């Protein structure tokens, strides 16, 4: 099922051609700076791997760009809108797949998606919800409470919720975590389709092999600083040493 065209800035109308631009981003947690002076520019339509050891600031960077948390220093514009002053506009064009899967345990996958759809102003999409759940492999569990789902299935529900938002820019934080091998292939297909649909995708992951294959550019974070950027195929092996079985 091909994704409907992007909402918000299509890939043609962007003046500067940049989906994400940041200058001197900083975020601290008490005495520790999780992000130090990060600057980057990501053109529309590119698929970028964000690599780095645990605690290098990958999640913090994605959450700042997705306006989930504030930046203590620096500025950033996502989908042509400022993350500090135009949060609502950014959020209309952005989707975040986070560690926490943003759902209600007591409700069922169908109800969770229906709630998200109702806030997105797309009430009448019931068949689309079921199709979306089928696409991520949750069709048979659509009406069981999410509390009975395994971690992998919750990740699939979170993925369905991200796809529902039909965003121009997607931030996927460790999307492969908790997924089983079929889940890996599902995610590869989804990212491929997003690329084909003209979306900009930033994937934070430890799986360098997969990242080289899927992404065209790569950024490497170390202790909150951007230490390398360039074509994904050349990402240095030690940059994000190892990680879970790829």
């Amino acid at each position, binding site marked *: 099922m091909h994704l409907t065209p992007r909402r918000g800035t299509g890939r043609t109308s962007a003046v500067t051609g*940049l989906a994400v631009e940041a200058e001197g981003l900083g975020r601290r947690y008490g005495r520790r700076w999780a992000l130090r002076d990060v600057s980057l520019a990501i053109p529309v339509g590119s698929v970028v791997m964000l690599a780095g050891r645990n605690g290098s600031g990958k999640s913090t960077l994605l959450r700042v760009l997705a306006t989930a948390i504030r930046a203590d220093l620096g500025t950033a514009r996502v989908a042509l809108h400022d993350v500090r002053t135009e949060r609502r506009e950014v959020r209309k064009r952005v989707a975040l797949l986070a560690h926490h899967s943003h759902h209600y345990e007591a409700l069922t996958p169908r109800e969770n998606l229906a709630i998200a759809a109702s806030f997105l102003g797309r009430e009448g999409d019931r068949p689309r919800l079921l199709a979306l759940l089928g696409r991520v492999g949750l069709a048979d569990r659509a009406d069981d409470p999410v509390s009975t789902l395994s971690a992998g299935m919750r990740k699939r529900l979170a993925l369905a919720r991200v796809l529902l938002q039909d965003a121009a820019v997607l931030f996927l934080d460790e999307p492969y975590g908790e997924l089983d091998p079929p889940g890996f292939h599902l995610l590869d297909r989804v990212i491929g389709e997003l690329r084909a649909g003209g979306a900009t995708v930033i994937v934070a992951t430890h799986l360098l092999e997969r990242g080289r294959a899927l992404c065209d550019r790569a950024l490497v974070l170390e202790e909150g600083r951007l*230490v390398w950027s360039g074509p994904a195929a050349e990402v240095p092996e030690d940059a994000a040493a190892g990680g879970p079985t790829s």
Partner: protein
Amino acid sequence: MRDYSTRPYALGGLGIALLLWGSTWGLLFAPREAYMGDVQRIMYVHVPTAWNAMLALTFAFACALFFLLRGGWEWDARLEAAIEVGVVLSTLLCMQGAIWAKPTWGVWWDWDPRLTTMAVLLFAFGGILALRQFVDDPVKRAVWSAVAVVIAYVDVPIVYFSVKWWNSLHQMQSSPETVSRAFHWPLRINAFGVLLLVAGLIDLRTRLAALRREGELAAPPVVAERATPAPIGAAGGTP
């Protein structure tokens, strides 16, 4: 970091001097009140405490509004100081109120609307002090305590009227301020005394809060430390 801050100590010292002067005047030289006798002399310290307790909490409300509308860590430091001093003064006020009520009404607490309102404020702002202990993120702690102060302060008139109506059946309101001209001077001197002392306390406590904030928050990263290569745009330096 200023090494030695004289202003708060000067304010405090002057305040204490005024308080001593006003209190000795009120205790030894002021005439005895016709009905109340000597017990009325408690007014020279009770009324100034009441005025300044309300003033401190009003200052906390102002700091909360400034922080919410304009931001700036200095307002959070002043907010913390004003809340703490307000709570201390409210505690003192309730104690004085009880000591005043015993000889006058035979009970320790006479549900006077003003005093009862201050007791409710004591617990409300005391709760906000507890809130500040249990929130670790400095920004969240600052925003939430500012929000809580605004909510608690807006409640003051409502609490006053509800207690006034609730209590109006029992007895005509005893207004401690029925003070004739001759008694005004010690009252006014003490009022300024407590005011200056409170100003000094808030000033010093603000510096303490500012220092703690400094210790809690890491300084911005020094740009020079940036590791090479400089993080160029992912697309190889296009605009």
